[in-house]
């Protein structure tokens, strides 16, 4: 038996840290792409607000009606005489604000509910599971329409009302995710160690469980914001939105209401649709990127 044994082949040089980061981003391009889009949108809203007086120009009678894009009105104007550039600037910020408010409520409530259900289990968990099961059978839009049309006066809707209605369901996804995570984390050794070493439940939750869940929570928060913007858009499309505020959704609502497409006022439809698409795309990419970062199962793909 002859065994040939070559001297070991020299190893190639270790790639630098930057190369590694770049390689990772190439495999997971969602996160940087989404962040760039988000920075662009926020920049558009913030810088736009500084340059344009949106508090008047984004509201009716600020300009001649239905002007196509021109030097004076780069994005045109709508039927009620809003300057659509100002509307887009203010709308992006308002829509973002609704999403952030509802998303924050959603993540706080959802995390609490999920932790309580997953950590304590028993009847608490049973009640919460029953509640989510019940809410799951009501189509979200229908529930929100009923809330918006029976509890709130249609003519007095503000962006805070929108955020409120949107947050009614914003907690559910987070709660489900947190509950599942807590259930699996609870069984891991380090939690038992903490319990044996005499940590209280609250201490275990905040010292041991929370840090492990942060990446998931980040992804879940983005998801909740996205859901809230989607929910408020649905209500706005059906005419249950804040009639006096130029959110992106309301702008689309008015454009459809006044048959902008049929009247060939394409700019009135195109810009807000584009803005919403950018908002959703950026959040979805960030959400996915975070998920990929947090979840090694997804990371394994390539």
């Amino acid at each position, binding site marked *: *038996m002859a065994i040939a*044994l070559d001297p*070991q082949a020299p190893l190639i040089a270790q*790639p630098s840290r930057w190369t590694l980061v770049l390689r990772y981003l190439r495999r997971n391009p969602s996160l940087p792409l989404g962040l760039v889009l988000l920075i662009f949108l926020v920049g558009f809203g913030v810088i736009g607000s500084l340059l344009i007086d949106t508090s008047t120009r984004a509201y009716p009678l600020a300009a001649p009606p239905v002007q196509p894009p021109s030097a004076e009105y780069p994005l045109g104007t709508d039927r009620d005489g809003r300057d659509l550039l100002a509307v887009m600037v203010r709308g992006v910020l308002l829509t973002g604000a609704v999403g952030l408010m509802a998303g924050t409520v959603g993540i706080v409530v959802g995390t609490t509910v999920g932790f309580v259900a997953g950590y304590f289990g028993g009847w608490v968990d049973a009640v919460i599971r029953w509640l989510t099961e019940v809410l799951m059978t009501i189509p979200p839009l229908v529930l929100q329409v009923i809330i918006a049309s029976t509890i709130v006066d249609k003519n007095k809707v503000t962006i805070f009302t929108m955020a409120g209605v949107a947050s009614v369901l914003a907690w559910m996804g987070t709660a489900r995710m947190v509950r599942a995570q807590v259930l699996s984390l609870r069984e891991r050794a380090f939690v038992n160690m903490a319990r044996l070493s005499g940590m209280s439940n609250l201490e275990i939750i905040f010292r041991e469980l929370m840090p492990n869940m942060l990446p998931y929570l980040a992804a879940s928060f983005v998801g909740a914001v996205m859901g809230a913007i989607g929910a408020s858009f649905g209500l706005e499309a059906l005419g249950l939105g804040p009639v006096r505020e130029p959110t992106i959704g309301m702008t689309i609502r008015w454009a459809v209401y006044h048959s902008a497409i049929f009247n060939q006022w394409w700019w009135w439809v195109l810009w807000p649709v584009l803005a919403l698409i950018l908002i959703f795309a950026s959040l979805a990419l960030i959400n996915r990127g975070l998920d990929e970062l947090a979840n090694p199962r997804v990371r394994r793909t390539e």
Partner: protein
Amino acid sequence: MTLQESPVLRVRDLRVTYYTDAGRVTAVNGVSFDLAAGERLGLVGESGCGKSTLALALMRMIKPPGRIESGSAVVRTEHGEMDLLALDEESMRKARLSVISYIPQGAMNALNPVLRVGQQMLDALQAHAPHLSRAEMRARAEAALASVELPKDVFDRYPHELSGGMKQRVCIAIGILLSPRVIIADEPTSALDVVVQRQVMETLQRVQEQLGAALILIGHDMGLMAQVTHRVAVMYAGQFVEVSPVQAMFTQPLHPYTQALIQSLPRLDNRGVFRSLPGVAPSLLRLPSGCVFHPRCAQVMEVCRREPPPAVHTADARFVLCHLYGDDENVAPRATLTTSPQEVRR
């Protein structure tokens, strides 16, 4: 068992490299060995030493970013010889199970949870012997189940209805379904409890002997190796550092690494999983210069740090990769053995 008879498997200079983000990792680094029909070779080493990669390479199941860089693995069949590493994809697919088969650690998850056991066996027959009738296939599957001492009704059961030991037996039954020349069993009993382990191992050994196939048994358990195998190959950082008949391996280990392994076995009973050695296994990304084992070696010499060790073949058909044993063939060991001879149960 001597290797003078023409071997059923002849592996030469097998190299497998993984191209990872962190750099190039050579997981199997120039491994060569022969295997006679009916022979049982144990393959031991710490996790990450490349023993599973070696098995996957023989099955041609290395997935990107891994790549088989070079080498040959020639199997002798009744139709002549074939180099597994040179076959095209479709021929290799046909060679799996019928020429070389792989028995996974089956107690956990190796069986498809949504298909009945019988269907999973029929799938294998359908893929390799489509000319058989449905009834013939079923008869063959049931015969295989019987040969691993499983009741007939296992055929119609789902994996979750079986115990760990039964699932492992099903995996063995599938592994021998097409009478392969070489069987690779990758820690086939590690998830089972001790009593079941022994029974399953006896079954595996019996069916392998009936087939006259060669068996490569991968594992951590030196005691099990002592009981089951004829020869043992010790793998370290992608290389075979010693290949010896099992008796000699336990009474007079040559390589310092083997010596340390044997020494670390529990004293009262050499059955058991070996403890870890001082130091850590090298990162395959940054292998030490010279002999890869030198940072952990108790008998390290100056030359070990500089030069790769020579491959030494002793007169009694042993192989060792170590500077202690000189450059020319057939030398007697220069070093005194640090291990007291232990009784090897065979």
